[in-house]
């Protein structure tokens, strides 16, 4: 098991470096001069040249790449180009918790609601509970989350006046709508996956055995069905988290939540590339860490992984 964990952590390390390389390269080759864009149309060529040297743009691609990559390990992404003298990392540190709160709460809802819906649907195959749960899941998958967000704002902020429409001034209340909209897609995917996993194990012999022992249905589901159906569910939960993180720019811009996603979008419009690099890298690393946790869970749940890496009983 140690070998497995070590393996995954080395892979995470490698992923971070390659992702950083990708982010840097994509942004480096965006046409147009960021220095000229930031200074505006009236800047003289000499001013642009001076700005370029301040921003470090006069150095070669490899030098810039090396500076960026070596900076990552000291958690330094340089200063913001637009808000001079403000380190990107301090802006990220201020905004990260908001993105994480939304992501984690949405993930918890995904797991609880998604898995319960899936279990209900799977154990009532072809009955009304099944159809209802799967219809809800299908609707959640199909409706674009940012549209649902807009509709919820109109209903709950404008018509009912219960929740704020944008911003985070109202504390917990202002996070309710962003969390709900972020979790919709995940709830749907989780419930669909849980249902089909449950159906796969539903008619297995050991389930019949468990029932014939006289176990109540609730225990059969919790102790015999779910553990065996768990593997694909864990995968979907993990990838769902990636989707929530990647969707954060859109959701945060709809609700005006000053998190990393919104900051990234604004920085992109202002061509503040150090900020964009920092934000994308943070979101990617965060996703990779969650995937690592998922992989480790896999190792714990699936005895085959344990055996392969020589940790478990053979």
């Amino acid at each position, binding site marked *: 098991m140690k070998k497995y964990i070590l393996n995954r952590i080395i892979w995470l390390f490698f992923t971070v470096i390659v992702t950083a390389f990708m982010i840097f390269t994509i942004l480096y080759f965006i046409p147009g001069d960021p220095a000229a864009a930031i200074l505006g149309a009236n800047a003289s060529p000499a001013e642009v040249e001076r700005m370029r040297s301040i921003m470090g743009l006069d150095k070669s691609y490899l030098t810039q790449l090396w500076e960026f990559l070596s900076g990552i390990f000291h958690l330094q992404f340089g200063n913001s180009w637009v808000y001079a003298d403000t380190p990107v990392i301090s802006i990220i540190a201020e905004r990260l918790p908001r993105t994480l709160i939304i992501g984690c709460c949405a993930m918890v809802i995904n797991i609880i609601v998604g898995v319960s819906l899936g279990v209900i649907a799977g154990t009532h195959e072809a009955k009304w509970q099944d159809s209802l749960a799967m219809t809800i899941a299908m609707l959640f998958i199909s409706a*674009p989350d940012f549209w649902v967000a807009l*509709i919820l704002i109109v209903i709950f902020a404008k018509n009912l006046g219960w929740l704020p429409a944008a911003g985070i001034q109202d504390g917990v209340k202002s996070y309710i709508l962003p969390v709900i909209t972020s979790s919709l897609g995940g709830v749907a995917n989780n419930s669909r996956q849980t249902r089909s996993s449950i159906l796969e194990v539903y008619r297995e012999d050991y389930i019949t055995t468990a029932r014939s022992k006289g176990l109540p249905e609730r225990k059969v589901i919790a102790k015999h069905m779910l553990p065996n159906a768990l593997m694909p569910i864990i995968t979907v939960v993990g990838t769902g988290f990636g989707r929530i*993180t990647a969707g954060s720019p859109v959701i945060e*811009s709809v609700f005006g939540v000053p998190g990393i996603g919104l900051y990234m979008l604004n920085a992109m*419009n202002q061509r503040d590339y150090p900020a964009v690099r920092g934000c994308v890298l943070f979101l990617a690393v965060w996703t990779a860490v969650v995937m690592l946790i998922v992989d480790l869970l896999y190792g714990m749940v699936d005895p085959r992984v344990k055996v392969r890496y020589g940790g478990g009983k053979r």
Partner: protein
Amino acid sequence: MEAERGRNMKKRNKKQDQYENSSLLRETLTRMVKSPTSKVACAALCVIVICCVAAPLLTPYKPTDMDVTHMFSGPSAAHPLGTDSYGRDMLSRLLYGGRYSIALGLAAAVFGSVFGIIFGCIAGYFGGKVETVIMRLCDVWTSLPAMLLCILISAALGPGFFNTILALAIGFMPIGTRMIRGQILSERSKEYLEAAESINCSTLSIMFRHLLPNVISPIIVATTMGVGLQITMAASLSFIGLGVQPPAPEWGAMLAAGRQHMLTYPYMIIFPGLFIACTVLSVNLLGDGLRDALDPKLRS
């Protein structure tokens, strides 16, 4: 004599091929027709596509016709879905916009799948180092969540219709690659491949004539579902200002425009979203139906 026999043989083979192909297709179609959900989804999708293609016949207004005397007029007989902030007819904008949205989703999913299939076939068939390189690249590619990658790429390429397709297709590619390669792994040791190799078929022919038809079903389903996903993603990109740009009436861009007035004129966001949701819903239901029809084992 020999030549004639050869020709006859070829003819017969061709006939057999055709028969077999049509029978798989026919079988799939028959199964799909049996499912009422697939039928409804298919019909709904056809209606939406036909309406978008035949938009000039259905509405008297052009999507860019402005009418300053009728700004923000709610749904009425003249404008069934109302008008926007420039007095443009929402229904005609939505119908013309559907061309962009549906074309974006379809093109992105198909291009992504085709490239995914090519790389997946190469990885799966050759194995060894080639496979390791391609699959590791896929892992790295997917380490950046798809939406983030699309945002980055479309920022790099600049906004626009074709750049959006490219950005979305690049994000979709690794999914196809993984899927095809996984399928091929289970086929690699089968006898028909050995047979094809022993009669000296070329590598290309083995990969695409013998192997691909046996592993294509899941990717057809994934592509169909992908169309729905890509329509949503394209709309999200346009919504945050990176995809198709106004005044092009793409659905996401219309939502972005309607958002500024949504508290006073909610119909401006309700209808574009409904169009996206209905299209994606029918595509997804069709995908579900197709999956059940192509592989009855998967039917739950």
